[in-house]
């Protein structure tokens, strides 16, 4: 048996520049058996590996029912992600996964969804929204709330317009700083929470973004009587192994790689309110 830390070879079968510093890679394991056996759920991640450089944890953004390839949207932040950005169709890299616990897409069925994203281009929440819209009948009302720092930071504008066309879908966009042509709101994401129409007793709130925003959203959701166990957060931490061994991603008693990256607010509440934990 191969150790859990050894990558498999994968091939780039598609790539797309999303913005000057963001790109998407479509990958496929070169061993058809490995590809055929590969299953994942929304919110899980893979370790992408450039031999000699290292590995990075990257969320999977394709649909779990898409079995031919695995999509990742990557921001160029460090040397490995910048070099991943140099890959072209046909190039090979290492891939292992999936890891972690993703969004509770089944537990959320039959409930109203509130998906809150802060920061620019949070790809995992975009794919979560697409997942829900492809299975529209299973979920109640859908509220999509996206906050960005500056109006220029909103990518995938066309998708937001498309989402609005679906029945029972509300899209709220806001920027900390908007320019003259910014048609939507200015201010924090929390400004919408008092008026959005959902059933606090039967809802699921998914949050992805900076931790400061998470704390603000949690506070606002509690005010609307949403219980902590119906609020889920996708966390980010330094990771080297992805299997709960290297110890780097610890957040209180949790290993973010293995126990998360998606947690309920109930699980993390004791740790979120402190700096440097």
């Amino acid at each position, binding site marked *: 048996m191969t150790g859990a830390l050894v990558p498999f070879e994968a091939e780039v079968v598609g790539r797309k520049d999303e913005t000057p510093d963001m790109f998407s890679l479509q990958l496929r394991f070169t061993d058809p058996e490995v590809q055929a056996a590969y299953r994942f759920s929304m919110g899980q991640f893979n370790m992408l590996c450039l031999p000699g450089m290292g*590995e990075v944890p990257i969320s999977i953004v394709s649909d779990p029912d898409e079995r031919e390839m695995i999509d990742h949207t990557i921001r160029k932040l460090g040397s490995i992600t910048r070099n991943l950005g140099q890959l072209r169709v*046909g190039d090979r890299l290492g891939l292992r996964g999936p890891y972690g616990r993703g969004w509770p897409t089944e537990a959320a069925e039959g409930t109203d969804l509130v998906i809150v994203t802060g920061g620019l281009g949070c790809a995992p929440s975009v794919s979560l929204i697409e997942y829900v819209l492809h299975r529209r009948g299973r979920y109640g009302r859908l509220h999509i709330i996206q906050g960005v720092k500056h109006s220029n930071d909103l990518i995938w504008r066309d998708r937001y317009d498309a989402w609005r066309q679906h029945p029972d879908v509300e899209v709220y966009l806001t920027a900390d700083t908007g320019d003259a042509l910014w048609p939507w709101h200015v201010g924090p994401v929390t400004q919408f929470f008092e008026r959005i129409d959902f059933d606090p007793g039967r809802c699921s709130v998914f949050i992805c973004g900076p931790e400061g925003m998470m704390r603000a959203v949690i506070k606002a959701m509690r005010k609307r009587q949403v219980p902590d166990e119906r609020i889920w957060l996708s966390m980010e931490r330094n990771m080297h192994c992805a299997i709960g061994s290297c110890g780097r991603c610890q957040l209180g008693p949790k290993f973010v790689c293995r126990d998360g990256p998606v947690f309920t607010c109930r699980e993390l509440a004791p740790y979120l309110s402190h700096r440097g934990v």
Partner: protein
Amino acid sequence: MKVHHFLARARFPSLLEALVEAGYEVIGPRVRDHAIVFEPLTTVEQFPRGIIDEQAPGHYRLRRTESGRLFDWATGPQAIKPLTFAPRETLWRSERQPDGRLVFREQPPEAQPTAVIGVRACDLAALSVHDRHFLHDAHPDPHYRERRRNLFLVAVNCLRSAATCFCTATGDGPRVQHGFDLALSELDDGFVVEAHSQQGQAILNALETTPATHDQLEQVEAGLERASDQQTRRLPEGSVPEMLQAAVEHPHWQSLNDRCLTCGNCTAVCPTCFCQTHVDDLSLDGQTASHGRQWASCFDPDHSTIHGTVIRAERPQRYRQWLTHKFGTWVEQYGRSGCVGCGRCIAWCPVGIDVTEELDALSIAPDDAPSRAPDGEERS
């Protein structure tokens, strides 16, 4: 009832011979660089005869005594962690083929049958903690497993404690309790020996022993009691994890800013610390690469760095992470505290920070403590 044997001092070399005969490389305590370390040895003369360790916060000195005993020292800096969790090892190698394809090959786990003489109760407790971390999860570690499987453990009951020892407070010593093959208790004229596994029994059968006398067993009991009595360090009463959880914003943490050097010595000598850095190497021609791991420390700012931001940027935050993990959140993760009371972090801290004193200070509610913010809410 368990039979205890007595191995006369003059016959101690036969233990080494029996282990070599059984195919083990023998590792035991030796003096190197003024400290007791576990290293390969072949003769009894290489054991630290009559050597005792004087330990105190930030202090470790060996002293020669007139005693003929080989195990009067309490702990060296190492424990047996390096024998199972390698300080640095390769996990896989890759090769780029001329056509651009990549081949990944797992580095096969390697281990020789190894017998370690002189393992203390605290070391055994730490080993069992690491067994839980490395073996009892969805992804058992093949490298750890192979080395662990090849270990033969000759434990030694501590009949003397160093001043830094506090295994009675953690419940891990000084008597060895489980997880060993043979246990020795050293008296002036020889060793009381007991076997605790089939392999241990096989080695014991190869030794020329006599049944241990009642008097010898009483001497061992008295020695163990003495070792317990010599320990003065204690842990706070009540639930330490709960205490630490309540003390997250305790002002005492800030005092670490002026004392802790964040050197990571405590994590290096701690027998249960398991954090790792994964490292990659590329050959000069760029065609082959290797991926390995090495010991890491949560005192390194890079340990928590993400997207260029250090999550635990301040020294007190890193010390808090270490202490609250070791004594607090560890319990939720592994069903017990990560501290086995060996006291190494106290002796090997260059500035003499004493975990038991830090825990004491944190367990006293500060008069002017800010009221705790409700969970999950921003403090004003």
